[in-house]
């Protein structure tokens, strides 16, 4: 899932302090699971903002709302939510970067008579897995050309700090990456896994250059399923 973290309170405050009708919209999908932008976090931010404004004797309305997902119009197309958006003069979206952008576009389309400003409440970080309660780790960078079959299910693009396809480098030590002793050397893991599978020969030939066009380096990507479009 997409993992993010709530922005520091001071940063959020600096984005909204000059407004008087603030709406916080949370997202019920990825950011709820990684405990960054779901209902509870929306409530918390709402309380923090109200406490801070009250302390400074500012008369500010802070409203709260939820959308199951902000990356799909149909989940935001609810009259209750849209009414709240109309009343606000600024919206804090607690969704990931995708949701913030998509919500901005959607709200501005659905409320044509005034421009709606949507600001991000989170710093979206990576695509990762929940390792244990409270710990998430990056696992995929979306390179568009998955090599996991060759590397025993361990991604060298994501988990190797140098994205080597012919690793490990000389900095691998005791199974750890040179950049951080808490980071496992991906290639060390790959070698071990392939050995266990009896597939170490797979990485003996030189792996050729990667075509980065399928990755983000080729610009913002798009997928169109013609069979879904009438």
């Amino acid at each position: 899932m997409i993992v993010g973290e709530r922005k520091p309170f001071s940063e959020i405050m600096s984005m909204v302090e000059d407004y008087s009708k603030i709406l916080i919209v949370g997202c019920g999908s990825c950011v709820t699971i990684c405990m960054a932008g779901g209902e509870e976090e929306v409530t918390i931010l709402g309380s923090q903002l109200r406490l801070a404004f009250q302390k400074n004797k500012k008369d500010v309305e802070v409203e709260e709302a939820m959308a199951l997902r902000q990356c799909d119009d149909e989940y935001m197309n609810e009259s209750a939510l849209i009414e709240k958006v109309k009343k606000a003069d600024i919206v804090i979206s607690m969704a990931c970067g995708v949701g913030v952008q998509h919500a901005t576009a959607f709200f501005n389309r659905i409320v044509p008579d005034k421009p709606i400003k949507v600001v991000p409440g989170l710093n979206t970080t990576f695509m990762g897995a929940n390792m244990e309660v409270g710990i998430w780790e990056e696992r995929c960078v979306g390179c568009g050309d998955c090599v996991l079959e060759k590397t025993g299910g361990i991604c060298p693009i994501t988990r190797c700090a140098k994205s080597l396809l012919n690793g490990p480098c000389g900095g691998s030590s005791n199974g750890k990456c040179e950049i951080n002793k808490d980071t496992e050397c991906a290639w060390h893991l790959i070698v071990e896994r392939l050995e266990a599978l009896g597939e170490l020969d797979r990485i003996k030939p030189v792996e050729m250059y990667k075509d980065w066009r399928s990755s983000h380096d080729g610009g913002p990507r798009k997928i169109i399923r013609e069979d879904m479009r009438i």
Partner: protein
Amino acid sequence: MTEFEPKIIAFCCHYCALAAADVAGKMGLQYAPNIRIIRVLCTGKVEIPHLLKALESGADGVVVIGCKFGECYFREGNFRAAKKLERAQSLIQEAGMEPERLQFDFVPGPGAKKFADILNGMTEKVRSLGPNPTVN
């Protein structure tokens, strides 16, 4: 001028804390007048929004009282509560409030004297901090 009497909300767990409150009552132990006790099955059930809402609604301080670590009826509810309190303290500090307005403490069951001491201590601490700065 009348002295400021802090309004304290005390989330008390059903097991040790409430038992302590009961015994304290029977023993006639005095503690500060403006305490509102809210019973929870276990302090683990207290969520951060509850703590923040308590302050938003005008409480001057909030204390969460549970069982001693290792004696929680639900095993780790009190550990979770303590962690949440820590986070809540930093959240209110971000918003410009003194983190000491939120406290976690425990009583041995049924530690009536400790119970009274906690509430009195919290009241004095909050008295020195002053009224909730967000209440106008």
